[in-house]
């Protein structure tokens, strides 16, 4: 089979192919003319078709990773990323490329009316080519998604561990979400750093926002408390809910060496006591004076 010849036919019939392709796309129910105008669609399609026909003009129909196909892959990547941003679904994006298949084979069918065997082989070849192109759009689409996920997890880990100075010498660290090894590392680092920076002697770890405390989480908490003690500060764990207390007991985790409280408020009260601070209502008389 003369592949060169096939490429020549396609190149010659470029305009027919483009017309057919546009017709297919416009007839498709999944056409999103709300997201992309018909002129833009036509411009994109023409650009892609031009570069594709250029790439196959030397008879390379199967290796889409060769240098001839670089512009095709670039254009395709651009299209699928911009479309993903515009809100196209992955189905619509691959439909766009797959609809080209029909347009290409229609043209060949016309030319090879009397040579069914040749036509068959050409169609198989084109099928493979368009399929691998559609895989590229899918890969690019996923890559775009993956980047979003990576960025979000970065953002989450950044905002999730604030160390708050609630009083002179008292730090509070509300932990929200699951405590895994990497989170514990971040928590421990920022807590120890903050103890040095502020010269605090008491740290309150609040676990109200931790959904489940299993032995691994408990082990991480114990490690954090030990590290804090090594720095000469005392650690109080607060926010132990009733159901979590029962679970910890059944699991057999020994937290008796650690000061624990049910709420952040009682932990703060304990911390005040440890620093010999007193909080009381101000004198009634002076308040009335103040308002006069």
């Amino acid at each position, binding site marked *: 089979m003369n592949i060169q010849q096939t490429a020549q036919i396609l190149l010659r019939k470029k305009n027919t192919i483009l017309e057919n392709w546009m017709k297919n796309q416009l007839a498709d129910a999944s056409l999103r003319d709300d997201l992309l105008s018909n002129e833009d669609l036509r411009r994109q399609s023409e650009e892609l078709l031009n570069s594709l026909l250029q790439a196959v003009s030397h008879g390379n129909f199967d290796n889409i990773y060769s240098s001839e196909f670089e512009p095709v892959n670039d254009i395709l990547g651009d299209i699928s990323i911009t479309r993903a941003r515009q809100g196209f679904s992955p189905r619509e994006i691959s439909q766009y490329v797959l609809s080209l298949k029909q347009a290409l084979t229609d043209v060949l069918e016309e030319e090879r009316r009397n040579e069914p065997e040749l036509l068959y082989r050409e169609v198989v070849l084109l099928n493979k080519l368009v399929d691998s192109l559609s895989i590229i759009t899918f890969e690019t689409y996923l890559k775009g998604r993956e980047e979003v996920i990576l960025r979000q997890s970065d953002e989450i880990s950044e905002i999730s561990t604030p160390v708050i100075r609630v009083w002179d010498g008292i730090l509070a660290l509300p932990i929200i979400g699951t405590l895994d090894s990497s989170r514990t590392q971040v928590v421990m680092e920022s807590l120890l750093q903050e103890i040095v920076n502020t010269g605090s002697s008491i740290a309150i770890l609040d676990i109200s926002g931790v959904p489940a405390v*299993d032995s*691994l989480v408990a*082990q991480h908490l114990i490690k954090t408390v030990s590290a804090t003690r090594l720095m000469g500060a005392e650690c109080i764990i607060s926010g132990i809910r009733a159901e979590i207390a*029962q*679970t910890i007991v*059944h*699991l*057999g*985790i020994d937290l008796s060496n650690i000061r624990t409280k049910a709420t952040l408020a009682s932990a703060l009260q304990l911390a005040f006591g440890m620093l010999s601070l007193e909080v009381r209502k101000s004198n009634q008389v002076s308040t009335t004076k103040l308002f006069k």
Partner: protein
Amino acid sequence: MISLTKDTMQIVREQDVVPFRNRVRELATKIGMSLVNQTKLITAASELVRNMLKYADGGKVVLEVVSKNGQAGIRLMFVDEGAGIENIPQAMQDGFSTGRSLGLGLPGAKRLVNEFDIKSKVNEGTTVTIIHWKNGR
């Protein structure tokens, strides 16, 4: 005992633990389990799933809503194809661990749920089945 619903979750990465726990919570809420029992079941499930990840590089969990004598419960079956456990009585002891952890996962999980069963063959894998009833008895 009859099984009312059944589905399977593959656990291969640490990131699968949170969606799995949420799925267990969903089932437990659906059958009206109290918060304390929910937390016990979820914690036990969390221990077992972590074991699976740590010692067998993951596996699968079969989640079922079961019913016996008119009482609903959750049955979880943790199936892995890891190295297996050589000495089960030893592994069930408090404080025994081959992995530098607290060694409370297996015995703790057993104390947290109503029914606990472990089967293991060296070099073939381990299957742990737990059942927790709606009212925790």
